[in-house]
């Protein structure tokens, strides 16, 4: 997954601003909630130098669950499945074709070696002072992988956890690079149990800043939070945490403390929380929730969505999502909160200190790697 963007290009990829951008498509038009029209760029080539043809795009889209029909130089696309979101499917639609030694992509790198121990990518067109080869090394366990990084066996270690960051402190060989993750920590409010007013009142009654601090770093404020106001409910609330991450547990405890006398039992369970929410057995579920790219962010709360087990329904949100107006969808979610947004998690990576300008991509973690400048 990490190297996918280095070898294969998404047909459409999310831009930092929340829209789409593309390195292979010349134009794209959203025709409706389920349909796009795409025009292939004329100079797009695979790593073996062959030109990308419409058939390659159609085959690639089909592999991602999207039907494409060529019409007057354009490709009209829609999901193969009736209940699938075209926006979500596009986030996994990469351009490829089968070559004699494996799949070929249009990215700056091509797969040179692939076996259970490693994947080696070679840059298709070498550039001075830029990374010419990427090797992904396999270790028996995360522990061994991290120890290998500390020993200097690898030049980068991605997705560090807080303990790893602690141990990398003072290791001059690495620099720590951070970027917002795709997920926020939220306290989802059970809409089966709470009305819009109750949810709003609950969201306003907790001190989000205090709860966020319980996370212990690596989690940034997710928008401004108003000062906490007292809440008239005196009914004990049942909380659950979806996951066993200690930081998630601390956030849950902080939320429970913030709820004061209303905070009641706390369940830490990865498996049962969703069904308990659906069954109305839990009032609040603390969980990580994908909030980026915007095309995906609101879909969890779309009325009747498969993963919407919170009972949330907001016709205005549904309408905004249908129209592809993600900014409006965000506003609707803020106006009628399905959850208390606590903080946006950070993604951390240790990158070799010789790299001058390492950055992590907003969606694909290593998307800017081809531009990293390396000191000799």
């Amino acid at each position: 997954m990490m190297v996918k963007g280095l070898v294969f290009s998404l047909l459409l990829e999310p831009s930092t601003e929340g829209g789409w951008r593309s390195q292979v498509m010349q134009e794209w038009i959203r025709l409706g909630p389920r349909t796009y029209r795409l025009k292939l760029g004329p100079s797009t080539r695979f790593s073996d130098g062959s030109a990308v043809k419409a058939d390659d795009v159609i085959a690639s889209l089909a592999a991602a669950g999207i039907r494409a029909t060529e019409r007057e130089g354009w490709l009209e696309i829609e999901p193969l499945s009736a209940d699938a979101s075209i926006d979500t499917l596009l986030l996994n639609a990469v351009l490829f074709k089968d070559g004699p030694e494996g799949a070929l992509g249009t990215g700056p790198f091509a797969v040179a070696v692939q076996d259970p121990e490693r994947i080696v990518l070679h840059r298709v067109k070498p550039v001075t002072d830029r990374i010419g080869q990427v090797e992904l090394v396999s270790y028996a366990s995360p522990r061994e992988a991290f120890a290998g990084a500390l020993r200097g066996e690898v030049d980068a270690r991605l997705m560090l956890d807080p303990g790893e960051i602690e141990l990398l402190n003072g290791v001059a060989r690495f620099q720590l690079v951070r970027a917002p993750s795709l997920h926020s920590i939220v306290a989802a409010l059970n809409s089966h149990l709470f009305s819009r007013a109750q949810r709003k009142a609950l969201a306003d009654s907790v001190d989000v800043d205090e709860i966020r601090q319980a996370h212990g770093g690596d989690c940034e404020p997710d928008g401004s939070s108003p000062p906490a106001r007292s809440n008239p409910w005196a009914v004990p609330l049942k909380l659950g945490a979806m996951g066993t991450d200690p930081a998630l547990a601390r956030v849950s405890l902080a939320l429970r403390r913030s709820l004061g006398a209303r905070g009641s039992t706390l369940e830490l369970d990865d498996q049962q929380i969703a069904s308990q929410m659906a069954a109305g057995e839990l009032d609040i579920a603390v969980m990580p929730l994908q909030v980026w790219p915007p095309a995906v962010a609101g879909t969890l709360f779309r009325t009747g969505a498969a993963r919407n087990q919170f009972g949330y329904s907001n016709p205005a949100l549904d309408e905004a999502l249908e129209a592809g107006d993600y900014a409006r969808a965000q506003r609707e979610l803020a106006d009628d909160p399905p959850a208390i947004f606590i903080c946006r998690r950070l993604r951390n990576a240790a990158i070799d200190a010789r790299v001058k300008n390492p950055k992590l991509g907003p969606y694909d973690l290593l998307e800017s790697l081809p531009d990293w400048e390396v000191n000799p």
Partner: protein
Amino acid sequence: MNRRGIAARLSLIVALAGILPIAIVGLVSVELLRRRVERASQQGLQVIAEQVAERTANYLANQQQLLRAVASVANDEGRLEEVILDAPGLGTVSVLQADTPASKLPRGLRTEALAAITERREVRSKVYSPDYSSSAMDVCVPARALGPRAACAQLDLRELWRFIQRIKVGSTGYVLAFDEAGRLIAAGLGALRPAVVTGEEVPQTRAAASVAKGEAAGPTRYQGADGEPVIAAWSRLPTLNWAIAVEQPTREALRSARTAQWLLALVLVMALSMSLAVGVWESQRVLRELEIEERWRTAGRIASGISHDLGHRLRILEQTASLADAGDPAFLPRISDNLRTELETLKKFVSEFSDLSRNLRSLELIPLELSAFLQSVRLTAGPYVQSANVRLQIQAPDVPLWVKADRHMLERAILNLITNAMEASPPGATIQVSAIQAGGECEIEVLDRGDGIAPERIPQLFDAFDSTKRTGAHLGMGLPNVKRIVEAHGGRISVQSKPKAGTIFRIMLVQCPPPEKEEPARRRAQPSSSSGPSSRVMP
């Protein structure tokens, strides 16, 4: 050796004589300084190690005390769990009771945790890794306000990591913490942190285990993790049986001593250079003055000798002139003898001065075969020997001996020795001239059976103007000239004499290989009459 060489040698001797004691004192001082610095560094590290041990023990004791305090007053399980929000070092807090399932018991304690409930006492686990990137230690204390229950905290040792990793001793020193088995649990040195993650042994593990158990004090000098020599100090946490090591690379710990060593070396080199420069300059100046003075002294000695000898000659010539003035024909033979004798004497004067003025640095040294050379000498000396009524015996070597020599000058030196031998020999005596091989050298020996030389004169024998025959036709320049000539050939001359028994002069010259065209060279050097036995006697 020329003046510059002499000056340099003098300067070096003086400089070394002056610098050497300073260098020895300096080196001893620097070594003492180094030892003192090492001792001071060691003591400093020991203080740090003890402070770290104390603070580590205090930190863990405080965490335990905090848990104990909260557990003794909290009457609500939920509030007890939330204590970690204000004390993150406690990691996670859970409440146990007698029927808590085993799967919910703390991983590091399991059944021991129940003792905190049933026996109402505190228990503590060893350090373990709850996941691959953290370390923890379980502590359970009785939760008195909750009845027969225990509050257990999974202490998060990342705070300990932070504390240990932040400590810098100098710019490269660091701290290591080990548990009772010598397992590294926190490291200030990045290169050792893989062992914190994997639990693998590090070079210090064995020593750390000994220190942790109180069996040993720990080594103070060894190779650090990256192969660099370090000095170290150890401390023990008796309550936990942990060990703390503080290591500092010797290059940093002993930097001041090293700097002193380099400075001393620099000062010594500078002092030596300056001494040499000043010494050479001053020696050259003094030698130049001495040379000028010596020239004046030599000129005076020459003038004295010349005026003495020429004065004697002048008096004889004045007497001869008086005889001529008398106009008596009977005096004519005597006048004639006097004039011939004085003429001969003056010729010798001129000859000796001529030798003195000759530049011996431009000698033409070519291979010379000594047997032929001695035959040539015999022919040249023949008329003089005959007139002196002595015999000259030449003993040529058994095998051809070759030296590199200026034939003319070497012959003059040998003839000079033969002349001296003739004058010292009584009538009918034999003078022996021989050549033999001695080691890698050739020895030419001139022997007479005359009266010999007084022993007290021998040390000054080769000094100029020091002849015993100053009343005759001698300036005292003969033997000094011989010595000059021999030394110009790279050889040396010695004398052995016994009063009333005779004198032997020996000239030692470096032997050289024969030239490639030996025969023609030999033919040129040998007179046509020289063939015959190796030992010849000449009347």
